């Protein structure tokens, strides 16, 4: 336990005190904190350089345009996408999935099947349900085993020539499972299905390479990887995006408009209607730069140490761990036996410890485990062993108070 990454210094919020203690922030799966460099870049832009993009011949607008273009370029490189045209700015993972459901969905017909898994966040369930209602498609769900891993055999059995799209999370936000994405994609491709990956939880934990994965779509949210809210990314393979109709329409995404008909701009703008989230795009670009300064191998090792320590120490308490214990990200979901998660959350809050309690937008998964809610501690590389200790101390206090 010698390597301490000691990254808290980069994140102003982590250096605030909370209810008299140092803040122990363990809700990283909900939203991460932002490094100083991101905050300064955004603030600098808004105080010195604010302007709109794409259309201005004047300096402020040229600079803003250039910065947004640069951010798109960094994201392309970050994901190893083949072209900048494949990087579409959206407001978050949820919009990205809805975009695909509405737009790629237009290419589907009644009887076509969409396959998801039991691990999914509501954002990767409901848009497909709605698509099925609109177009008569059928939603199939691949089950997981009791230990929280995808049941690959069942997954295979559910794949057929009817499967037009497979959509699954790279990492489960609720119990931390890391899906065997490459293998799943290979299997899906064998039956000719397209594959979408909900990467909301993945980009902050592991190195993503969309070409190596060979997925058709990949989505993530800026606010979950050290960037601002209001911005996210949909990666899509160029050839597929070309075939898809636009989702939202309006300014900036058209070529010509007449009252009779309109023609659409080239990728990526075809999918980016309206004034973009300019300062958010610039902030996300800076967050990518921050991530590029990290060594993801080191981060993974470090986070696994945190995870192991947390699982070990929680194992000594009267709690029930939910989900996998290996091949998972540093996300621990558990219930304190005999105590409701909400009460646990309140008492931890009084100690300055931020965890998430509830269903984590994965109600079907909660049902699978026969719990209505869990306590979730989700770690980031900026957490340290002291944070684990604080959590354990907090849980002991829960027992003191609630017996």
């Amino acid at each position, binding site marked *: 336990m010698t390597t301490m990454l000691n990254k808290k210094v980069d994140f102003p919020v982590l250096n605030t005190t909370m*209810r*008299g203690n140092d803040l122990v922030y363990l809700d990283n799966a909900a939203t991460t904190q932002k490094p100083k460099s991101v905050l300064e870049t955004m603030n600098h832009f808004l105080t010195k350089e604010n302007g709109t993009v794409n259309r201005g011949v004047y300096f402020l607008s040229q600079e803003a345009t250039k910065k947004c273009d640069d951010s798109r370029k960094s994201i392309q490189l970050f994901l190893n996408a083949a072209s900048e045209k494949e990087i579409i700015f959206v407001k978050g993972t949820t919009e990205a999935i809805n975009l695909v459901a509405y737009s790629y969905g237009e290419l589907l017909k009644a009887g076509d099947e969409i396959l998801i898994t039991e691990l999914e966040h509501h954002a990767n369930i409901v848009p497909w349900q709605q698509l099925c209602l609109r177009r008569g498609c059928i939603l199939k769900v691949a089950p997981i085993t009791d230990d929280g891993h995808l049941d690959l055999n069942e997954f295979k059995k559910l794949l057929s020539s009817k499967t037009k799209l497979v959509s699954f999370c790279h990492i489960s936000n609720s119990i931390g499972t890391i899906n065997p994405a490459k293998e799943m994609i290979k299997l899906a491709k064998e039956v000719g299905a397209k594959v979408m990956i909900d990467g909301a939880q993945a980009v902050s934990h592991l190195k993503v390479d969309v070409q190596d994965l060979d997925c058709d779509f990949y989505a993530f949210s800026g606010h979950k990887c050290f960037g601002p809210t209001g911005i996210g990314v949909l990666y899509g393979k160029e050839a597929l995006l070309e075939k898809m109709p636009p989702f939202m329409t309006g300014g900036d995404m058209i070529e010509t408009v007449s009252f009779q008909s309109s023609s659409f701009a080239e990728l990526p703008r075809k999918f980016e209607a309206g004034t973009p989230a300019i300062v958010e795009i610039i902030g996300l670009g800076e967050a990518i730069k921050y991530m590029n300064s990290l060594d993801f191998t080191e981060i993974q090792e470090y986070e696994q140490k945190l995870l192991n320590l947390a699982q070990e120490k929680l194992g000594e308490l009267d709690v029930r761990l939910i989900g996998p214990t290996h091949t998972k990200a540093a996300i621990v979901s558990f219930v304190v036996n005999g*105590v*409701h*998660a*909400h*009460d646990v959350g*309140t*008492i931890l809050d*009084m*100690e300055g410890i931020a965890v998430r*309690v*509830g*269903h984590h937008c994965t109600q079907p998964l909660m049902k699978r485990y026969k719990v*209505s*809610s869990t306590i979730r501690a989700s770690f980031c590389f900026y957490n340290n062993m002291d944070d684990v200790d604080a959590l354990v101390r907090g849980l002991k206090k829960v027992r003191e*108070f*609630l*017996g």
Partner: protein
Amino acid sequence: MDNDRLRAMYQEMILEHNKSPRNFGPLEGHTHYGHGKNPLCGDDYEFYLEVKNDVIERVGFTGDGCAISKSSASMLTTMVKGKSIEDARKLSETFLEFILNEGPKESLGKLKIFEGVKQFPVRVKCATLSWRALEQALLKTKHIASTEA
């Protein structure tokens, strides 16, 4: 200080009702029914009342939630049993006024114990959920099959 606030909320009596809720279980032959649900935290309770001649003769509840919501539900059932619909409604109003605003607590009896929850704004909903469900139940009569009428 924080420990004091916690102790003020998690009173002995609250914890005791949470551990051993009164009138727990569905009620056969109920005449009124209410459902209270907080989709954000997952609290979910159902209330069953048997009302005869405008008096709540029997009451039961099922469901699950945090200590505050469960003890609130349990204490609610003990408080409204035997009361007229009118009086139960008044009690509910007074309790909600007390918890949500600065309403007086004199007439609340042991429900005063929920005062500590007011220090925890996000938890106030937990204390009020069952009372909202009661109000709903008192509005919506569930007409039971004619033999019972």
